[in-house]
């Protein structure tokens, strides 16, 4: 149709770029699967949940303590960060004067930019000793939950902020014309309207909490055990990979790739859930 040869070359180059970018996820999954196959052959999937403990040197591969560690740390931090993040977004949208709102938004953005290793370091030198005074030893599930909460807070705050500011202004004016108070308007009109956006934010922060490695590695104590209380040390799936990859060989190494694969599956499920929720959006 067009007589430009340059156009054809351009489109093929661009397509190659897009395909490269799109294929990375497949490559990652493929490598995780390939590297996991040996241990899945020799040990099987079931024993990752039924073995008496995680002692790869003695051919024992129970991942459940780590799964519990990840689950507890995630749940605790999501429970803390979600209300704080949504209240943050409400603050910058409806309570703060414009200048303060801009300042606060910048602050949240900067909080999002602090690297996880710095959060981990701060947790290690400030938070852990404080918890240790309260109830030894210090490195604990609680430390992990608190650090994770701070880390994932910007995620939920920024997503909530954008879904709140997408609520049509007409709703707010209509609510005001009916004489509704500020809090009633927020609770009864704005939050329900922005609901699906807020859920998406919760899912994104959950993904971040599950995937975080360095910070929890630095503050959680890394003992392989199902924690009995908030003050006991735990080890998460991600920390387990980071800790043992350097010396793992054979089936042990392969088992670490299985936990990587497990993380991928969880993340994949969360993204599907996010997709499913955002399809039900009331507004764009």
């Amino acid at each position, binding site marked *: *149709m067009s*007589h430009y040869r340059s156009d054809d070359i351009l489109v093929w180059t661009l397509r190659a770029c897009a395909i490269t970018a799109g294929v990375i996820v497949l490559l990652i999954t493929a490598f995780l699967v390939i590297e996991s196959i040996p241990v899945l052959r020799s040990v099987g999937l079931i024993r990752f949940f039924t073995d008496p403990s995680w002692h790869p040197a003695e051919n024992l591969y129970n991942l459940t303590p780590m799964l519990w560690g990840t689950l507890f740390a995630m749940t605790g931090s999501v429970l803390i960060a979600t209300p704080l993040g949504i209240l943050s977004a409400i603050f910058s949208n409806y309570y703060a004067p414009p200048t303060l709102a801009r300042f606060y938004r910048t602050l949240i953005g900067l909080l999002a930019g602090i690297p996880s290793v710095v959060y981990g370091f701060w947790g290690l030198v400030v938070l852990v000793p404080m918890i240790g005074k309260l109830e030894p030893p210090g490195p604990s599930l609680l430390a992990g939950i608190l650090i994770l909460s701070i880390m994932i807070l910007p995620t939920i705050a920024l997503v909530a902020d954008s879904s709140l500011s997408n609520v049509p202004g007409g709703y707010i004016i209509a609510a005001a014309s009916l004489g509704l108070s500020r809090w009633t308007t927020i609770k009864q009109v704005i939050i329900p309207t922005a609901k699906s956006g807020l859920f998406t934010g919760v899912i994104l922060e959950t993904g971040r909490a599950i995937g975080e490695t360095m910070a929890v590695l630095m503050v959680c104590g890394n003992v392989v055990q199902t924690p009995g209380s908030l003050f006991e040390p735990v080890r998460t799936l991600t920390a387990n990979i980071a800790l043992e990859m350097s010396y793992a060989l054979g089936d042990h190494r392969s088992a670490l790739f299985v936990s990587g694969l497990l993380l991928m599956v969880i993340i994949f499920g969360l993204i599907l859930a996010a997709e499913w929720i955002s399809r039900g959006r009331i507004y764009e």
Partner: protein
Amino acid sequence: MSLFKLTYNSCYKLHETHAQPEILSNIKTEGLSLFYGNDAAFKNVSLSIEPGSITAIVGPSGCGKSSFLLSLNRLTDLIPGCRVTGSIRVGELDVFDPDIDITSLRLRVGMIFQKPNPFPLSIRDNIALPLMEHGLVDKNNVDLAVEMVLTDVGLWNEVKDRLNTSALSLSGGQQQRLCIARTLALEPQVLLLDEPCSALDPLSSAVVEDLIMSLKGRYTIVAVTHNLAQARRIADYAALFWANNGAGSLIEYGAVKQIFDAPKEILTAAYISGTRG
């Protein structure tokens, strides 16, 4: 053939490779319909536009006037989900022929949009870029062409000292004239104008309207307009589009005097007098 066109062509030859005949094209549509997805924008429009005339397309909004204009040089290709049926001939060119060279069609049929939209380049480059794209590489010739078309749209004296400043620094009316100039530089035979004055203030609008009048006879001009008085002032022919159940259709087409003074259709009379639409 105007004096302008003669001198103009002697200065630079853009269409050498395309071997354009030096005649003005007529436009003939037959059974033309346009759909966005499953919804028709207009249906079954058959219209024959005289070479060298100005034809005004009028009608209430949503009657498919602008879509009609877009189909004439196949800009509808750029709209996802847009489908056109029927036939259009511009001169001897079959617009929907799959083998047609789309670039030479767009060179032959120029288009001006409602909102002035110069590219974020310098004033000169807005005109030079398409010229160079179409094979005019000699810098002197490009400069010559820039000067000629800017003179032609009455912009030369206003901008000659700042040709390298951003086109976005011009006023709205100047921007629109620059857009007309860069289209004229490609020596089209047909000009499509999509409400070219409606986004401008009254003074700029008058200047652009005068410019369009001065182009009369040199190009076949099809102009969509909301402004009935303007249609009456500038056009030789007028066509009224009207929307029925969401899809537009051609109600009446004829000489502008006849349409305004002795409309044959009741709808036309009602629209002209302002009782409908």
